[in-house]
């Protein structure tokens, strides 16, 4: 019998939507180089611009403000590098004036590492703390925000715990201080309403494979007038801001995925949230002594991060996998270092609990029955690991969500 497989790791990546896939297979016939002037090239170009419009539409942005990149990491790096150029002299040293960057402790590694790189060049970087729910501490933010602030970069929704930030408020403060505002919306765009004008951001990062599109394609929104320099030098593609032959098929697939994400946004928020809450409530009812991490209400509709005190993350993950459930863990042992998830540490979960945390991220394709199966399968696995655990008195922690 075919083993049951339930994929609940949609924040890591999503499968290709079948409609997107079918479209992409047809698109393979479009071989013209979108930079060429002949009709094959022009045809490819026209299709590419349609995709650009669809991606812009997803975030309420004019097509011309959308630049295609290879994905979220490139988009984020582009922003940091562009602002580095703005604030450096020709030798790369920061100029006087705006040389400070504000970001958070819970960003994706590509933002954390971009910020760390700028720090190594002499920029000042603040990694804002977050509260127990993962929300940026606005007071701390106000304290470090000043006329020296060059860039504020805060992710819209966290990949591990799903907490959604108050980007508009953060952006308004940034603008008032004269700083540029960037948000990494890789996990948000396509899952919750995202509108660049409502959010008042200057830059916004997106990715194709998080919304049932292909991997290796993403986009960066750049408000007109915001500084931009190419990360990749070469030809004049993307108005000279991102060189390299167009990834036609990827872009067209991404455009289709963005179009579908926009169309389905409401249903997604509604249906997936129901499943997530079903999973949350079922686990809370059936597994004693667990904690839900993240914000109780300002949270992605698909993300559920649970700490299982007394059971270790990688063991749980592999125990689930043997039962056909594919989730992810913030436990370090799974990734080879002993460091627990920086996000869980930042929200104050503590290493002992962080090591026993599992992220279930849901998406289209997960059914009510799947959730029931997970709810039935998890308790004995946890009970078993707890029974063999050296942690005899399982720490009791208050649940932040009920």
């Amino acid at each position, binding site marked *: 019998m075919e083993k049951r497989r339930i994929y609940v790791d949609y924040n890591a990546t999503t499968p290709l939507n079948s409609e997107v896939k079918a479209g992409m297979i047809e698109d393979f016939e479009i071989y013209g180089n979108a930079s060429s002037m002949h009709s094959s090239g022009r045809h490819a170009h026209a299709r590419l611009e349609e995709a650009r419009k669809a991606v812009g539409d997803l975030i309420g942005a004019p097509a011309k403000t959308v630049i295609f990149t290879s994905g979220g990491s490139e988009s984020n790096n582009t922003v940091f590098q562009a602002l580095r150029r703005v604030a450096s002299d020709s030798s790369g040293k920061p100029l006087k004036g705006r040389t400070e960057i504000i970001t958070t402790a819970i960003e994706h590694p590509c933002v954390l590492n971009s910020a760390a790189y700028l720090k190594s060049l002499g920029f000042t970087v603040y990694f804002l703390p977050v509260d127990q729910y993962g929300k940026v501490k606005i007071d701390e933010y106000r304290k470090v925000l000043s006329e020296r602030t060059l860039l504020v970069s805060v992710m819209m929704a966290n990949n591990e715990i799903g907490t959604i930030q108050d980007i508009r408020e953060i952006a308004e403060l940034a603008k008032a201080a004269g700083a540029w505002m960037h948000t990494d919306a890789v996990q948000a765009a396509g899952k919750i309403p995202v509108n660049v004008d409502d959010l008042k951001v200057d830059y916004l990062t997106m990715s194709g494979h998080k919304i049932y599109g292909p991997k290796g394609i993403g986009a960066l929104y750049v408000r007109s007038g915001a500084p931009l320099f190419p990360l990749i030098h070469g030809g004049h593609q993307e108005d000279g801001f991102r060189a390299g032959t167009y990834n036609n098929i990827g872009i067209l697939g991404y455009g289709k995925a963005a179009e579908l994400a926009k169309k389905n946004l409401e249903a997604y928020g509604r249906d997936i949230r129901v499943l997530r809450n079903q999973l949350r409530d079922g686990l809370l009812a059936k597994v004693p002594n667990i904690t839900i991490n993240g914000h109780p209400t300002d949270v992605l509709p698909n993300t559920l991060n649970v700490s299982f005190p*007394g*059971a*270790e*993350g*990688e*063991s749980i993950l*592999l125990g689930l*996998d*043997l039962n056909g459930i594919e989730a992810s863990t913030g*436990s*370090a*042992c*799974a990734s*080879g*270092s*002993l*460091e*627990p998830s920086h996000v869980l540490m930042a929200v104050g979960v503590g*290493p*002992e609990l962080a*090591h026993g945390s599992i992220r279930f991220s849901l998406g289209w394709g997960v059914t009510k029955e799947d959730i029931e199966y997970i709810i039935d399968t998890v308790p004995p696995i946890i009970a*078993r690991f707890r*029974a*063999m*655990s*050296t*942690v*005899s008195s399982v720490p009791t922690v208050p649940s932040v969500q009920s």
Partner: protein
Amino acid sequence: MPEWLYSDTVKDHFTNPRNVLMEDESTYPHDARGLTGNLICGDQMLMLLRIKDDIITDVRWKTYGCASAIASTSVLSETIKGMNIKDAYTIKPEDLVEKMGGLPANKIHCSVLGDKALRKAIDDYLAKTGRPGLFKEASTVICTCLGITDKDLENAYLKGARSWEDFQAATKIGTGCGKGECKTKALELLHEYAHIYGEKQA
């Protein structure tokens, strides 16, 4: 596609750990007890031994640890039954890893835990029976995360380790907290061993 991340042996021992104690440790009267690891680092291991005439007659263990830690300790627990404590004390983690059909490099440190707990238990037994330091030889822990002692480093040295990287390759020292304290101490020891054994450092 491989159906499982690690070897089949690891899978078998992970899903069916041998000699694991599912109850509280008070349910298993024992002659020796060794607890090692640190919950902060994400793993902990408890080893309980029954010993008669220096022979390990039975063993139970408990862990808060990953699949590799569970599997390697399960294999270890089978290996040491009926063994003289002196032989058990000198079991090398590499032998266990081999028995398991290998482990990814970044999981080797997990397999060291059971071994450390076992030695602690044996030391505990020796102390209880009035033979302190028979195997321990007054070793001190250099890397608190992984319980690597100066004895371990000395053994590695005698087998040819001449640099921090060599120490790491042999013992996985310093792959825990990242504070670097153990590195400083280990490099001092390296210097010391070079003196003692009259060899030049590479």
